[in-house]
Each structure stands twice: as C-alpha cells, then as structure tokens.
C-alpha cells in the first residue's frame, strides 16, 4: 500500500499527465457517444413478412407461414418462433437469444429464406425480412401538408413514394421509409363484363394482351461504317392512350381496342389502411425507421438536413410536417439527466466546501467528479453503451459516491495538515494520511461495485433497462477509485497547504458548522456509548418501524417511462371495413381535438407499406401531440391527461380504447407478450375445437379462487364470402377449377398486368371488373366464366357462394396454432393459483389427443427473475462479507458493518412509504446502491476505531473519540450521496419517474443508516470490537 502511494507521489507529474490523457480520451468518447432516449429493451427479433395480396388467413397459414416456419427450424440461437397469419399478410417473428448479433441472425435467416421461397407456391408472394430495426426504430412520423388544396390524395402519395421516400432512404442510418394513407397510383383497366360478352373475350385474354403490348427489348448491335449501333425496340406504353389502344382482338380485320371493353383511368390501389388527421379527413403519412444500433441523434440531424433539401424540391405549397419526432424525447431525456447531473455536481461541491471549509481541498475532491464521469464514458464507448436516460442516470446517481474515496483521503490529509508537526514535510503528511485510509477506501469502493453485480444478471426487459445504469455506476466507481489512489494524493500535495493558524487539537475544527455539530453530537454519542442498550432499543425500534411499514408498500413493475407523446390505440370490431373504420376514427379525432391540451392527432388505420407495422384494419393508432405541459389545464400530468382522454372516449360505442406511448407500443408489440399475469395457451390444430375448448377452460378458470379478468383471445369474427367450386357442375361444361378461380381472382380481386413508367416512377397496370359488377354477393354470383367451347356461364351455376365467419388471424408458436386464455390473480398467491388451475383443467376439461395446455405469462418472468436473484444475491452478500472480512480480518467487525444493511433498508422503506411509491425494480436498484454507501461509512468508522484501539485507547474512548473524529467524512459522504440524488428526487422531466423511487430509497436509507453509523455503531462496537492483538496483521 505504502509503496504504491510512494510511487505515485514520486511520479506525480506522470500521474497528472496520465490523468489529463484520460480526461481528454473521455471527452473525445463523449463527443462520439451515440445518444438515445432510453436503453433499447427490444428483443433480438428477425421479422419475416410475406405479402400475399387478397388471401385469407387460412390460405396464408397453409401456403406461406408454414413453409417459412419450417425452413427456420433449428437455426442456432433461435429461441422462439411466433407467427401471425393475417388477411393478405404473413408475419413470422423469429426471436433469438439476447446478445445474438442481429446481422448474424439476419444472415442465417436470409439463407433459409431461399429455401422457404421455393416452398411457397407462385402468386403467394416472396418472404422478406423486415427492416433492421428495433422498438426504438421509429424516429419520425410526418404527414404531407398541402396548403394549396389542389393535390389529390393520389398525387400526394406519389410525392411521398417517389420524391420523399428515396432521398430519405439515402440518409445513413435510415433503414426504411414507410408510406401510408392516400392512394397508391395505378393505371386501372376497369373492365365492363358485358363488353367482354359482346366481343366474346375472357378476362385472361385481356390480361395477356396487355402484358404482350408493353415491352422494350434490346437486340444487340449492328456495325455501320466502323461504328457500332446498339439496337433497341421501344414498345412500352408511355401515355394513357397507348394503353387504351392496345388491341385485344381483331375480327375480320376490325380491331377491338382495350378502351372498347374497359375504361382506362388513373386510380388508387387496393389498400389495407389509411391515415387521418384532426378529424378533418385523410392525409398521406410517412414513417422513418432507424437502422438498428445507429446513433439516433446523428440520424435525426441528418434527416433534418435532408428534409430541408427535400422541402425545396417539393411542389409549391406541399410541405413535410413532422407530427412525432423521437428527437423531442431524446432531448427531453438528455435534459432531465444532464440537469440532474449538473445540479448534483453543484450540490456536492457545495457540501465539500461547507465541510472542508476551504477551496483547495474541495477542488481536489471536485476534480474526481469529471475524472470519474469521463472515465465511465470511455468505458461506455468500449462497451457500446449509448448515452441515455439510464446510463447517464447512473452517472447522476453515482455523483455523490464518486467523491467518497477522495473525500476520505482529502479530509484525512486536511486534518493531518492541521494537526501535524511542522517538522514533517507536506509530502510525508500526504503519504501518511493517504495510506491510513487507503485500504478501507479500496475495499469500500470495491464493495459498491460488487453490490451492483446482481443487476448484471437480470434478464429481459429489466436487465436491458438497468444494466446500462449498473455499468456506468460501476465504471464511475472504478474511475473514482483510480482517482483516489493515483491522483488524489498528488493533487492534494499540489493544492493543499498547511493552515496559517496555529494547529488545532484533535477533534476540534476550525469550521463553525462542524464545531456546532460536534458540540451536539459528542454528548449524544457519549450517551449511547455509555448506555448501549439505548442504542439497541433505538435500532430495534427503527427495525420494528420498518417491519410495520414494509407490508404496506405496494409492489409494481417498473414505473412507466413517460414519453411525452400519447398514443390512443383503438380496437374496432374485427369485421369492420376500412371506410367505416375511417369514419369512426374521424369522429374520435374530432372528440380528441376538443381537449385543449391536444395540439394535433394523426391516426393510422390498419397498415400501409409492410415493414415494422402490420396491423389489421380494425386497429387504429392515434398519435396525440400535446401542447407544452406548462400550459395544461385539464390535468397536471401525462397520466392525468390519459384519464381525461379515456373519459372523453368512454361513451364511444363499439371501440376499445387503450392508451400507450409510441416507443412503449413498439416494444410491447415486439415482446408480444401477454399483459396479464397468467396466460394459458391452448395448442392444437382445429380452430373450432380450439375455440370450444378454450371457452371451456375459461369457464373452469373463472371458478378457481383468485381469478380476475379472465378472457379468451378472439381469433374469429372476420366475415368471409366463401366461393366453393362444385366439381360436378364444372365437369358439365368442361371447365377447370383454375379457370374459375382465375376469373374470380382477376374479375373480383383484380390482377396486375405489367407496369407503366413515368420516367423512373413506375405504377402498376391493374385489371379488374368495374365496381358495379363485383361489389355485392349477387353481382359476384353473376360473374361469367368462359367455358372451353366459348360459352359463358355465370359463377353461381358453377360454385356455391356463401357468407361465413372465418378466422381473423391465426397465431402460432413453435408451428402450433394456439389460443390464449388470460387471467389476473387477485387475493391469492400466483403459485397456488397455478397449481389449482392446472388441477381444475385436468379434472374438468377433456382435451382431445394432440391438444395441450401451457402456462405462461408474467408470473413466469417474475419467477425466473426471483430465482435468479435468489442465487445471485446471497453470493453477492457472501462476496461482500468476504471483502469485509479480508479488510478487517475479523468476523465481528464485518458483521458489525453488515448491520448497516438492515438499518439502511428501514430508511428506504419508510421513504418509499412517505413518498407514496411502490416497491419496484428501480427501488430495488436504489436499495442496492444504498447498501454500498452505507457499508462504506461503516468501514471508515470501524477502521478508525480499530486503529485507535491499536494505539492503546480503551474501547469506549475509541468509540467516542473515533466517532467524533470521523464525523466529518461520514457526514460528508452521506450528504454528498444524498444531495447528489436530490435533483433526481425532485425532477419532473421526461424519464424522472424511473429514477424517483431509486433516489427516494437512497436518500431515505442514508438518513437511517447514517444515524446508525454515527450513533448505534459506536455503541455496539464494544461487542464487536477486536482485541488489540487480533488486529495485528
């Protein structure tokens, strides 16, 4: 020990240079650090989308989802495969183990995708991977504002698709730009079925004709006089008349043109969703998706620059108007933590100056703050941790702890400079003072770092949320330790001077505040040391108080991070049409706009371009932009406003309202977990049996005591018009099933017949019957099918047309269909409930072969986390105990210091209770941090007691004397740590809700544990004291 400090002091310039290097490296790292709002808690998911226009969920599942799932089976690190087969869309979510490299995952998925594509029949689309992004990926939503009012929704959509989308996609870090709303332009060939009869044409003939009259070809080259001419033949349609004049048939030399059998016009493609705004109708919306891992703030800056350019290119009067920007959130979150950091630094320095009473020693300690922070930032850069609410929050929390090591050293140096002999050189004093306290400091800081180990082992969302915090705290503490050992003595030597006044006696202070404190403290501690039982009673009383309050605390999951933007998610009836959905949304938006705090509402109905969002038509997501919170009148908080919205929409018939936030929503979707405590999944093949049995299970579970909100997830409710071709009937006409289905597909659904080029823009040429011939079941029954002998037969003579109710979507896990029955548990413990429920299902529900039940839900996650902590916490405590033991070489001392832990707990619990907060993960993190600080103080004190004993003091003397001598450092570290948290405690900014419980626990806990350290510990020391000879090392 001594040698190290000697070395340090001898090479003090080297140390300073190294220190400056670290500061510089830290600053550079800080500049390059990616900035996010929150840590990204999304799992590693690769999404595979397959768009199969017009197919029902059953077909999608059979022809698309299954081959994709089958191809993916057995991929390394694949944890779970979950799929949804929707109307026209198959989504397969492949969940990989945490920490799997996303590019690795995508690569192996990509390889298997080829296999899958081969298994998917033609016409069902090609499976594609979703964007390389995560739940934090949607960084900007915008709509096109047309102030002139002369652009149609189709034109605006073309502007989005061709003028905005492509330039934006070139911005580094943007992985996709998705459009929704308006109409995708199409050149529509609207067939008149009667005209087809008139000219004896079939739909397919028309389709083929269009395809064969819209081509360019190349024909190599010819040589002419030594020059080479490339030959090309141009036959692409270049204007709408070219399409009109395609000859579909010629009879006796008389051509029949396409426009004789069809109307050719520009129209909008079939769509599965749209967007509306403020209850004033439809808008065209774009969503910018960020690449996984890209630096949000950088990408946002680049996008903004690009948007400025694009805005200039856009037609007069059309502008891009952002209605959701993650930037706002990032800025707010950064502001919250930087404010907290700044205020904490200020408060801590204030404490230093007050307690040290001089500028110079305060400066030495204060420098440890930037050093530790920048050291942590270097570590973050290496570990790839972004600057965000949690990681910087960790730094803010650690501010008070960072100074502890240096405080103890500097305080000791200061004290010794005041009391030491003038004969002793300054460097000698610094050396002596440092060495005296170095060992306990190293152990104390190590203990603080070790205390955070359990956080590193948390998995899933909690792990991803709090690991950055644990990292930065540990890193900052490591930095502060380095500072304390290598720089604090050097800087102390450089900056600190002997007092000019005559030296004071031990235990006397020149600082008035400490003189007063000592005057009060000394008699009290003497009283407690003399009457130890009073101390025991005090401690016991506190313990009882904590024990009484503890059961009163509620427990909750991690508090919600407030994002400052509200998403109102509406679920409409599953059978709803897009038009009706739009109508309802419009009314809902009008209502929302009546709330004065709401500035703007933009809603997305269903889905647009496939990528990250793939909601069915009956789901509406309204992004609600709020005016600045200072102007709110209806409610003070976001939660309050959410209640206002809920109230406002409570009597809207036929919709379910769910209020969430943009990032929260995306993350929830990706996690796709069931929100109830318990989810019973019934796996099996037949949808009808699944439905029936799940209803049975629901009834059984409702009977189990403690069941609440029992529900079966609906999978049905989507009406279908089922056209079933009768094989006997088609046989009479010699028609193939395929012939009938081709007509059904093209006539009713429409088919693409090539593309129309407008410069680089390309639009589909789409062939379909005119609306009045395919809109009702009766009209569909009358669609004519051409038999091989040329005669035309109405569809209803070949097939039955029936209205049925089909599945809305089919969900599968591990390639097995399932239905979820979910329930919460009230008034009983979850474990018992599960046991009883399982028994009840076993006894009362008769499941056919191949059907089985799986229990899951949040209780599983809870159990997993509990069992993990149950292993990790004792190990951690054991390690701490070992550390304490190896520091003091005494079980008794170690145990005495351990007593700080329950005392700290009490304060934390009481503080939570007083603040009306619940036990939650951040509160637990607070407890963990608290133990570290509490132990540190104990170590400082007990070390000094031991030293005094060695010097020959009696135990009582040592206790009183030691406690008085160490009053300053103990109070300083406690105050520094507590005041460091104060800004977090009173912050109301974005993200403060997560750190509030943490800060509450630490501040409260420090209060009680400091009382213990200062009053009870000296009193109890007698029983735990070492004998002088024991302390000999």
């Amino acid at each position, binding site marked *: 020990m001594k040698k190290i400090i000697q070395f340090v002091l001898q090479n003090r310039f080297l140390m300073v240079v190294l220190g400056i290097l670290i500061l510089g490296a830290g600053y550079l790292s800080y500049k390059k650090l990616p900035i996010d709002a929150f840590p990204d*808690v999304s799992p590693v998911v690769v999404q595979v989308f397959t768009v199969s226009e017009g197919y029902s969920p059953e077909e999608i599942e059979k022809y698309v989802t299954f081959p994709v799932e089958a191809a993916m089976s057995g991929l390394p690190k694949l944890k779970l495969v979950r799929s949804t087969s929707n109307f026209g869309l198959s989504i397969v979510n492949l969940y990989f183990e945490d920490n799997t490299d996303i590019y690795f995952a995508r690569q192996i998925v990509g390889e298997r995708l080829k296999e899958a594509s081969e298994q998917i029949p033609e016409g069902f689309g090609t499976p594609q991977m979703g964007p390389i992004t995560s739940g934090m990926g949607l960084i900007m939503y915008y709509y096109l504002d047309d102030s002139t009012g002369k652009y149609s929704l189709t034109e605006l959509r073309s502007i989005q698709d061709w003028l905005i989308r492509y330039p934006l996609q070139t911005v580094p870090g943007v992985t996709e730009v998705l459009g929704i709303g308006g109409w995708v332009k199409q050149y529509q060939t609207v067939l008149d079925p009667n*005209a087809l*009869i*008139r000219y004896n044409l079939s739909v397919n003939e028309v389709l083929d004709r269009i395809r064969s009259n819209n081509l360019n070809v190349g024909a190599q080259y010819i040589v002419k006089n030594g020059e080479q001419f490339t030959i090309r033949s141009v036959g692409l349609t270049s204007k709408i008349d070219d399409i009109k004049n395609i000859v579909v048939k010629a009879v006796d030399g008389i051509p029949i043109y396409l426009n004789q059998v069809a109307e050719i016009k520009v129209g909008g493609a079939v769509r599965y969703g749209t967007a509306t705004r403020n209850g004033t109708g439809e808008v065209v919306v774009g969503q910018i998706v960020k690449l996984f891992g890209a630096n949000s703030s950088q990408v946002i800056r680049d996008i903004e620059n690009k948007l400025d350019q694009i805005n200039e290119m856009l037609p007069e009067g059309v502008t891009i108007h952002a209605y959701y920007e993650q930037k706002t959130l990032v800025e707010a979150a950064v502001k919250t933590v930087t404010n907290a950091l700044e205020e904490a630094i200020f408060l801590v320095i204030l404490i230093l100056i007050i307690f040290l009473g001089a500028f110079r020693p305060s400066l030495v300690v204060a420098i440890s703050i930037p050093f530790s922070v920048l050291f942590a930032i270097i570590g973050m850069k290496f570990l790839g941790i972004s600057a965000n609410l949690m990681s910087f929050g960790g730094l803010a929390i650690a501010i008070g702890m960072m100074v502890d090591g240096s405080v103890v050293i500097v305080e000791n140096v200061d004290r010794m400079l005041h009391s030491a002999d003038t004969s002793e050189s300054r460097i000698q004093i610094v050396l002596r003072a440092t060495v005296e306290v170095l060992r306990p400091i190293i152990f104390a800081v190590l203990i603080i770092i070790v205390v955070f180990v359990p956080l590193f082992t948390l998995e*899933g*969302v*909690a792990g991803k949320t709090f690991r950055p915090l644990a990292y930065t705290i540990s890193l900052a503490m490591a930095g502060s330790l380095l500072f304390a050992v290598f720089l604090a003595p050097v800087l102390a030597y450089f900056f600190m001077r002997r007092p000019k006044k005559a030296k004071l006696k031990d235990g006397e202070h020149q600082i008035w505040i400490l003189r007063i404190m000592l005057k009060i403290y000394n008699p009290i501690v003497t009283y407690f040391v003399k009457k130890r039982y009073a101390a025991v009673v005090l401690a016991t009383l506190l313990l009882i108080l904590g024990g009484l309050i503890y059961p009163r605390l509620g*427990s909750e*999951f991690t508090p919600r*991070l407030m994002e400052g933007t509200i998403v109102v998610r509406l679920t*409409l*009836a599953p059978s*709803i049409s897009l038009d009706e959905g739009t*109508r*309802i949304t419009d*009314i809902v938006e009008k209502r929302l706009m009546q709330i004065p705090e709401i500035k703007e509402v933009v809603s997305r109905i269903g889905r647009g371009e496939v990528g990250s969002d793939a909601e069915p038509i009956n*789901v509406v997501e309204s992004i609600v932009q709020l005016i600045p919170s200072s102007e709110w009148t209806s409610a003070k908080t976001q939660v309050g406003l959410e209640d206002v919205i*809920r109230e406002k929409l409570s*009597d*809207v*018939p*036929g919709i*379910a309202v*769910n*209020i969430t936030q943009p990032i929260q929503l995306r993350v929830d979707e990706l996690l796709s*977990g069931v*929100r109830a405590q318990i989810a019973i999944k019934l796996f099996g093949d037949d949808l009808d049996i699944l439905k029936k049995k799940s209803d049975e299970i629901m009834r059984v579970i409702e009977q189990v005591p403690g069941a609440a909100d029992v529900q079966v997830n*609906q999978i049905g*409710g989507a009406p279908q018009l089922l056209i079933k071709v009768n094989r006997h009937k088609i046989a009479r006409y010699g028609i193939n099933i395929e012939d009938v289905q081709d007509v059904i597909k093209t006539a009713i659904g429409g088919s693409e017949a090539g593309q129309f080029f407008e410069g680089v823009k390309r639009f589909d040429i789409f062939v379909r019957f005119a609306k009045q011939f395919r809109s*009702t079941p*009766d009209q569909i029954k*009358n669609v004519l099918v051409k038999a091989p002998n040329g*005669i035309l*037969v109405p569809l209803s003579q070949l097939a039955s047309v029936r209205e*049925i*109710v089909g599945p809305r979507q089919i969900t599968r896990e591990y390639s097995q269909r399932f239905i979820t029955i979910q329930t*919460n548990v009230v008034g009983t413990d979850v474990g018992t409930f599960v046991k009883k429920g399982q028994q009840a299902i076993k006894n009362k529900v008769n499941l056919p072969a191949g059907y089985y039940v799986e229990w899951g839900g949040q209780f599983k*996650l*809870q159990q997993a986390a*509990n069992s993990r*902590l*149950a292993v990790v*916490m*004792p190990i951690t*405590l054991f390690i701490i*105990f070992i550390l304490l033991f190896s520091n003091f070489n005494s079980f*008794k001392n*170690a*145990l005495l210091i*351990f*007593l700080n*832990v*329950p005392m700290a*707990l009490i304060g934390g619990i009481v503080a939570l209770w007083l603040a009306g907060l619940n*036990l*939650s*993960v951040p*509160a637990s993190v607070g*407890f*963990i941090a608290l133990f570290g600080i509490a132990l540190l103080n104990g170590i400082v004190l007990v070390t000094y007691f031991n030293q005094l004993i060695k010097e020959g003091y009696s135990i009582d003397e040592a206790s009183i004397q030691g406690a008085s001598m160490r009053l300053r450092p103990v109070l300083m570290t406690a105050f520094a740590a507590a005041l460091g948290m104060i800004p977090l405690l009173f912050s109301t900014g974005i993200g403060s809700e997560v750190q509030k419980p943490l800060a509450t626990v630490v501040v409260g806990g420090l209060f009680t544990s400091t009382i213990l350290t200062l009053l009870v510990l000296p009193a109890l020391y007698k029983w735990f004291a070492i004998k002088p000879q024991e302390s000999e090392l």
Partner: protein
Amino acid sequence: MKKSNLIYLTVGIVLGGLLVFLIMNGSGTVNIDEPIVAKSVKNSELKNQKEIVKISPEVIKEFGVVVAEAKPGKIELHLDLTGEVVPNPYKIAHIIPRFGGIVKKIYKKIGDNVKAGEVIATIESNESLVEYKVKSSIKGTILELHMTPGELIGDRIHAVKIADLNSVWAELNIYQKDLLKINIGEKVLVSSPGSNYKFEGRIFYVSPTVNEITRTSIARVNLGNVRGFWKPGLFITGRVQIKEIKVPVAVPKTAIATMDEQPVVFVQTDKGFIPQPVKTGYTNDKYVQIISGLKAGQKYVAENGFVIKSEIEKSTFADED
C-alpha cells in the same frame, strides 16, 4: 476459527437471508408491460346484459346512427339479362328476282328507306327479254343489296333484304338458373351500355327450348325504334321486373346485420338497442322484406348499425391486445 466467530457467521447469514428476502420482494417484478387500460368492470357488466346497448341521443347523432320506423313497402324484384337487338323477322322482306336476267338499273342503295311498292331496280328477263321492275314488298330499310348494274342474276338469289326497323326485337339470354323466374308479360327496361337510350317493353315470347350449346334460353321484347337507335346487333341489357310485391314490413338493406350467422335488425326500445333476429323474405338491391322479427311501427336502426353491432361485440375483442 473460534466458536464466537461461528455464531457471528450464523447471524450474518441470517441477516443476509433477510436481506435477500426483502430485495426479492422488491425486484421480483420485472416487466413494464403492465396494461395501461384499467381493466374495465364494464366488460363483465356487458357480458351479463350482453344484448342491450344503451347509447345517448347525442352519440347516436354523432355517429350517424339513423333510426327509422318500420313501414310497409313495395319491393320490386328484377333480374338483369344481356342480349342483342335483332330485326323483327315478321318485318323482313327477302326479295328474289322473279326471272333471271341482266340487271339494268338500280335505284336504291343500302340503307335507303323504301315504301311498299317502290321500285328498287329493273332487270331484263332472260326469258322474255323484257325489262321488269323489282319492287319492295314492304315499307322499310334496305339492309342488303346483292346486285350491280350489268350483272347476270339468277332467279333464286336473295337480291334484296329489306327490314322495317321501326320495330325491332330485343333478344335476351336467360341462364339456366333464372329460367323459372322469367315469364311472358313481364316488364323489361332495355338499355344499351354507354348510351342513355332506354325502352320499356314487355316480354312477349320465351323460347320453349334451351340452346344445346350455350344452355341459355331466349326472351323477346318488342322495341319501338322510330328514331332508329336500336340497331340490330347492338348489345343491350334488359332489367326484367319480375314482380312488385307489397310487403307489410320492408327495411333498407343497410338495416340488416349478421350476428352469429343470423340476420338481425337493431330495434330501439326504452332500454336501448336490442339485436332482434329476423326472418327475411324478398330482397332486391335496396330493400329487404322482413317476414318476422320486426313489426310495422317499431323503431329500428336503418343506417350505421355497425356501430351498435361493434358495441355488442366489444367484450369479445376489447382486451385482446
């Protein structure tokens, strides 16, 4: 290790255990997926009185729910047929030269209107070497003229075809499935796609057989054609009014919803809206006859009833996400 140390160790472990217990209870909850919507008690209420929906008058208005009173009505049933215009075969004259000979002179062109007895051409007979006149036997329009001056023409040749196009026929194809619905005497509105011309006539003939190849039968309607719009060969559609039925209760089609694969009408009562299963009868593209389930005078939802249906079904989809 001393005995006392062992005791301390034990105490330490016990304390540690206490600590673990406390922390676990604090941090055992690791999810932020807590549903934000307070689980509404409303849902369970709905289940109990599932079938009644109460909505305030303002909301009814806001959501465009239209309430009407059930009334008797007329339902016109019709069927759309396609076909073409053909000349009336009773008003066609095929003129054949009486004697073979050389065509001397032609007075008319294709498309000319002629009166009965009007001379069309003169032919010099091979037998008598005398010129005779070829006259129109009817009033009409010349459709075909197979003669040129100087041509030697036989006596069995269709030389001229004249048709009176003031009255033509609409020939409509009847598909097998509709055979029984079409009867003589039924009103037909004939129209030509792409034009505004319409003609209302009655079916005077339904062919007693079905074409062996196309398996269609034919219905005919006389078309007055004074203006000459209905040109033979023109493609037409005919809307056959099969029946016009007076029914005690007719509702617009928009009033019918399907619940549990059954047609229902939402009836307004004092308690609220109730989905009333109904039996439907005659239907056309606008109206439906209600045979049972809804009486005249009852108030029902005529438009935007989907809002009511959604509200009833809400409990089944409300909390699935």
